[in-house]
């Protein structure tokens, strides 16, 4: 090792240490817990990025963020930092035999350089170790405050190059927090990075907030608030904070869900006397009734083609998932295993349905997989007792859901194969109802 590289490594280790310390000190930072080892995962080494910038070292360890992203999706296993023995920063410095001895299939190297106006230019390269081949080499520019975002985008590109599906690390989650005592509570609708970092408040309320739903362009959130006494559905621009009431009918106004084109909103209204599914044309606010049944019909979500809705109904006694054409008509029951199935969400390809499945006093996240056709197979994804509110990543590689631990709610991200789970500790108090954002526009 040349002295330059040693110094560089020390600098990077230093900045890595700072990130860890920050995580330990602030309760707003997420804690990462990989619960299950993954033997079958693809080994990949992400070498600490070389600092070739003249200024102070950035406080984000880009390689660590990329490695953490790849680890939590289940399909990868990144080489532990202490096992990284060489620090190549570009193709010319890569010695493939080293990485072959370390049994790595892929290698990521990169470097951070100065860009204009205090920003950074980040270059990275991806190699196939066995073929000794460069698969990818790209550069990104990022503001000093957005190096985590740049790292997530690199992780997305690496994921896509190797797996063949667009990565979903550079995305966000919306969720609800509740702090304080039963008598004095403060609710907030929050948005954070998909790994829980950079939490930001969208709206605060003394009254309950629930059911956040992303618009397909990722710019707006619809949600339910009780601030007018009864439930109402609000639509809020998350950048400007501007908001409007979409629905405030007599009775329940709940369960908003945007159509894939963003022009319509499925929602639950009980103005007819009991909860029914409606579809609202957002521009005109006109609502059309979809279900007509004396049971509770709620929690509608759109199939990817925008032509039918999957919803919860207890028309057979206990809640189960059903599918109905948006134009109305007969509902078809989807779920037959489990005594209680509710809160169904749909993967981007319309082949998988995640839901809350209750058996006795145990509520877990289950997935109905119909990739091999109906009726499909059901598997349980979560091990908790009161797990709820599953939400798919836009590429369906992961889900996020809420769990209870003691008296508080926490969020877990779980890989679609259920082999890796990661807890996101986002705030003190109760955290619940996560909603994964659509892909962000680069």
């Amino acid at each position, binding site marked *: 090792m040349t002295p330059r590289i040693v110094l560089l490594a020390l600098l990077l280790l230093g900045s890595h240490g700072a990130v860890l310390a920050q995580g330990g000190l602030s309760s707003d930072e997420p804690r990462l817990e990989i619960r299950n080892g993954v033997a079958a995962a693809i080994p990949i080494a992400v070498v600490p990025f070389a600092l070739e910038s003249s200024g102070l070292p950035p406080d984000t360890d880009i390689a660590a963020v990329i490695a953490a992203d790849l680890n939590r999706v289940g399909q990868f296993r990144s080489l532990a930092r202490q096992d990284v023995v060489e620090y190549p920063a570009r193709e010319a410095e890569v010695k493939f035999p080293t990485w072959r001895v370390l049994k790595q299939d892929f290698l990521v190297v990169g470097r951070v350089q100065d860009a204009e106006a205090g920003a950074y230019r980040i270059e990275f390269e991806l190699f196939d170790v066995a073929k000794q081949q460069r698969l990818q080499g790209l550069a990104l520019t990022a503001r000093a405050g957005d190096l985590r975002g740049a790292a997530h985008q690199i992780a997305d590109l690496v994921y896509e190059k190797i797996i063949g599906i667009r990565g979903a690390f550079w995305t966000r989650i919306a969720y609800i927090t509740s702090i304080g005592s*039963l008598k004095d509570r403060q609710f907030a609708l929050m948005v954070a990075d998909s790994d829980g970092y950079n939490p930001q408040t969208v709206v605060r309320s003394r*009254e*309950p907030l629930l059911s956040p739903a992303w618009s397909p362009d990722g710019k707006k959130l619809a949600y339910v608030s009780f601030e007018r006494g009864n439930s109402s559905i609000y639509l809020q621009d998350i950048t400007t904070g501007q908001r409007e009431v979409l629905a405030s009918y007599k*009775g329940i106004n709940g369960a908003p869900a945007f159509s894939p084109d963003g022009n319509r909103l499925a929602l639950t209204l009980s103005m007819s006397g*009991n909860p029914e599914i409606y579809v609202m044309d957002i521009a005109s606010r006109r609502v059309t009734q979809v279900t007509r049944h004396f049971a509770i019909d*709620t929690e509608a979500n759109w199939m990817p083609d925008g032509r039918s809705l999957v919803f919860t109904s207890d028309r057979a006694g206990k809640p189960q998932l059903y599918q109905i054409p948006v134009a109305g008509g007969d509902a078809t029951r989807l779920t037959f295993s489990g005594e209680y199935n509710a809160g169904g969400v749909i993967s981007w390809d319309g082949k998988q349905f995640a839901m809350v499945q*209750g058996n006795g006093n145990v*509520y877990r996240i289950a997935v109905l997989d119909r990739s091999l056709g109906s009726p499909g197979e059901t598997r349980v994804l979560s091990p908790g007792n009161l797990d709820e509110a599953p939400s798919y990543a836009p590429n369906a590689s992961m889900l996020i859901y809420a769990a209870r631990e003691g*008296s508080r709610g926490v969020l877990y991200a779980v890989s679609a194969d259920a082999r890796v789970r990661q807890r996101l500790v986002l705030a003190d108090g109760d955290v619940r109802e996560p909603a994964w954002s659509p892909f962000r526009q680069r």
Partner: protein
Amino acid sequence: MNTPIRLILAAALCVGVAACAKKATVVETQPEPMPVAPDTTAAVDDGKYDAEDLETVACLRQRVVYFDFDRSDIRSEAQEILACHGKYLRDRSSAQVTLEGHADERGTREYNLGLGERRGNAVSSALQANGGSAGQLNVVSYGEERPVAEGSNEEAWAQNRRVEIVYTAK
């Protein structure tokens, strides 16, 4: 660890107050109006309730109806309370009630909104069967969003599955 202490505290605070569970709920949006209902019917022994009875008559002071898990049918022990409130509503046509329906934490939040409303409607029907009129009754469901008891156990769940009878006009 905290929960039993809090429950005891809540109980202690509520000593002598009938509507304990109600007091434990924060309803900040609608501060309770003081009883200003005109008391034109001066007759004391016509067998009709008047506004003061809400605070003195035992069955009228009970304003919480509890439910079984995932059910919305009125239990037999609540029939007497509802008969009482139904008669009050018949006797005092100016009285207005909001029925706040609640569910325990199990199951999804949106389904529980529906369940809370179904419970509120069941109480509304029972009050109408006992003399109240639909125009006096307003149902609001809070689902599982406003628990009165903390904890993930049968005892807390049983307290949280409820409809609160809130007089907005006496």
